[in-house]
């Protein structure tokens, strides 16, 4: 033997990843080592290849991104593996193009025909189409999660998902109806029910994840959002009810005398601006609570999650994530809007010559809608978010995870075609 070994008291313990001789547990049980620079390199390469291949490469691009995130996430010192392949996503997309798209087009032909010929029946057909579409979205998300889980490996053990997409989508649809009927009151119960279905069907090896979420606790986070939205809506509703009395001022606006008309219009606008504004303030406040609700749900999920006796606990900071969100989404949006204002209102380019318009506009569209958002979403949002989540996540009894046994593999051969068809994951993982 030419290589010396580190012989400790309890035998040799090699931690290959961190150089640390102990296997990490507790607060170090989960670690994220993703960095912006290599990720930016992957995104640039992905973008160039996607352009050259008329966007066919996008399936392999998404796979590259996932491989990076997975392999830089360490559980108990060992990296996750993403074993999915671009070709699988591509075939999933081809299947959708081959089957689902023609079906949907034929349906739309029937729909347009019925809508114009028999408006009464047409209405029902449209409703069925709309409801079916929402059902399909839920179905697609459940199946896509299955694909991702079956392509996730840790220490040679495969993750997976049981349960039925049909059942899940139907349940999600019914909860959607319920939340409309109960004016949002049922949202926490729907959320917990669906999440329990997702989590308890997700498995690692032979072991299913445990979920101890309770709707009453979610409701505690939800009610301020609901109450504020309710107040704003009631406020506006009362105003619209008052609209009847404003009918006379409308008549004055239509007065042929320009002075009378202008004065009435000003009074009308002032009335609405002054009265609508408080409702708007309440609504914005409601949206702020909505953001808090959604982030708090992430933290809550970790706190009710368990796996083979190991329990998770998260202390992530809502405000930090609000900060990342602001930097990655809100600020760029403001910049974009002000740029558009500068270009189209202040600079007022006036007339265009068609020939010169194509390329620059194409470039602006490309950078504005594809490349920059991707770069920002990953570098400014996902990387700091995942880092913060993993830093604030502790696992109690982490060593229990090591008792997990390999399960029977039942992997879908191709992936995610439906999700791709619905174009939901712009730049997402």
């Amino acid at each position, binding site marked *: 033997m030419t290589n010396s070994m580190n012989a400790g008291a309890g035998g040799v313990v090699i931690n290959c990843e961190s150089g640390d001789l102990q296997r990490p547990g507790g607060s170090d049980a989960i670690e994220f080592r993703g960095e912006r620079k290599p990720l930016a390199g992957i995104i640039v390469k992905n973008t160039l290849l996607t352009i050259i291949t008329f966007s066919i490469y996008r399936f392999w691009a998404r796979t590259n991104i996932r491989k990076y995130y997975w392999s830089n996430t360490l559980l108990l010192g060992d990296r996750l593996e993403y074993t999915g392949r671009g070709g699988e996503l591509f075939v999933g997309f081809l299947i959708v193009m081959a089957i689902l798209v023609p079906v949907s087009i034929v349906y*739309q032909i029937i729909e347009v025909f019925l809508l*114009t010929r028999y408006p009464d029946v047409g209405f029902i057909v449209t409703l069925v189409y709309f409801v079916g579409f929402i059902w399909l979205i839920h179905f697609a998300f459940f199946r896509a999660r299955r694909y991702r889980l079956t392509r996730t490996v840790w220490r*040679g053990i495969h993750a997976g998902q049981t349960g039925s997409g049909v059942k899940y989508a139907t349940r999600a649809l019914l909860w959607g109806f319920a939340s409309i009927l109960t004016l949002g009151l049922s949202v926490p119960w729907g959320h917990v029910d669906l999440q329990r279905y997702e989590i308890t069907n997700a498995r690692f090896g032979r072991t299913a994840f445990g979920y101890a979420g309770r709707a009453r606790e979610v409701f505690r986070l939800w009610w301020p959002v609901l109450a504020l939205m309710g107040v704003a809506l009631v406020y506006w509703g009362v105003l619209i009810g008052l609209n009847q009395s404003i009918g006379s001022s409308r008549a004055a606006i239509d007065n042929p005398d320009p002075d009378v008309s202008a004065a009435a219009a000003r009074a009308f606008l002032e009335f609405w601006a002054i009265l609508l504004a408080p409702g708007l303030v309440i609504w914005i406040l409601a949206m702020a609570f909505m953001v808090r609700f959604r982030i708090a749900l992430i933290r809550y999920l970790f706190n009710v999650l368990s796996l083979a006796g190991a329990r998770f606990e998260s202390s992530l900071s809502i405000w930090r994530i609000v900060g990342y969100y602001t930097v990655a989404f809100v600020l760029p949006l403001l910049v974009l809007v002000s740029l558009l204002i500068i270009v189209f209102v202040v600079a007022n380019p006036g007339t*265009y010559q068609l020939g010169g318009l194509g390329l620059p506009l194409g470039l602006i*569209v490309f950078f504005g809608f594809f490349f920059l958002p991707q770069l920002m979403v990953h570098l400014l949002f996902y990387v700091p978010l995942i880092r913060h989540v993993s830093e604030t996540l502790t696992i109690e009894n982490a060593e229990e995870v090591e008792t997990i046994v390999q399960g029977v593999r039942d992997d879908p*051969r191709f992936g995610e075609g439906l999700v791709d068809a619905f174009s939901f994951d712009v730049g997402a993982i």
Partner: protein
Amino acid sequence: MHAFPARYFDGMTARPTDVEIQIDGDGVSIRELAGGRVLGVWPADEVRLVERPRPGSALRLRRDSHGAERLLLADDRALIDLRANCPKLNRLHGGFRNSWRPILIWGSAAAVSVAFIFFVAIPVLAERAASWIPQEVEYEMGARVADQMAGLFSQDSEENLYCATPEGDIALQRMVDALRDKIDYAGEVSVRVVPTPVVNAFALPGGQILLFDGLLDFAKDAEAVAGVLAHEFGHVEHRHPLEVFLKNAGAGALLGLLLGDVSGGAIIVLASQLYLRASYGQEAEREADDVAIRVLNESGIRGDTYAEFFAQLRDKHGGLPDELALFSTHPGNEEREAHVRASSTGRGSVLSDGDWDALRHICDTDAD
């Protein structure tokens, strides 16, 4: 022969075992450190890297492309031995062999269905839907497209989208009135002139026609313009613009689906560019020509200068004027010229010399 410390996962449980491995021509043999039991021997051609080696991070090995066993090695020197002994070390996946068949099968199926949608479903749907869409909706659509197109082409210094002079408007109205009643179209028809040197004319949904100023300059006389106008009236009568509009919308949606969400914005640009190059196809052009001849003949307007227009264009652009969507769709300009010439029976004029002069200068607001 070298031995390296390693961590072994047997693919059955997530519990690690500290092992010592030996790499030689037979492959990788794995021996438990505590007890010395041999846990397995991986044949040399079944040893694979899980991912490309990265400096500062452990080598990960697996058995076969799909095996669940894993080996982790901290010592970079092992890589040298592995490379020397394991021929398929860098084969990251099962190889292309396993993946080409579904791509081929589903790819052909997808191509067939996309072709079906593009060549059968969209044209049929566009044709049908054109007759289902209410006239007001069509007019609104056309008005929006007209303003966009005029905005793109207009070179008026004062940013007027359309040209107008009192005399020119009257002259244009006279020309329209002379032709309007001869077509079978219930809706409103409006003709406007766009200030641009481009030689072209468009019929848009909702009976809206755009004449480009360049065409007024290029035409020999008022009858040639009347011929072009009658041709556009022909498209209006057959509701070609709405059909093309719907076809493009359908094709744009399909293209968006094919390209993914990557170029959601680019699709819009592409679709509008497509519209500018809108081609009705030879059959539609012939239909429009037939209407033009009928209208000219019924109005007693001479068709020979309109016929000459084709020759004029051919001379100017060498036969294939690519910026002229109006005339570029058909290679048979000569054929059309002959057809118009042979079928035309009218001898009269459409405008007085004064009116023609006013129409020609409808965009010259500064000069007057």
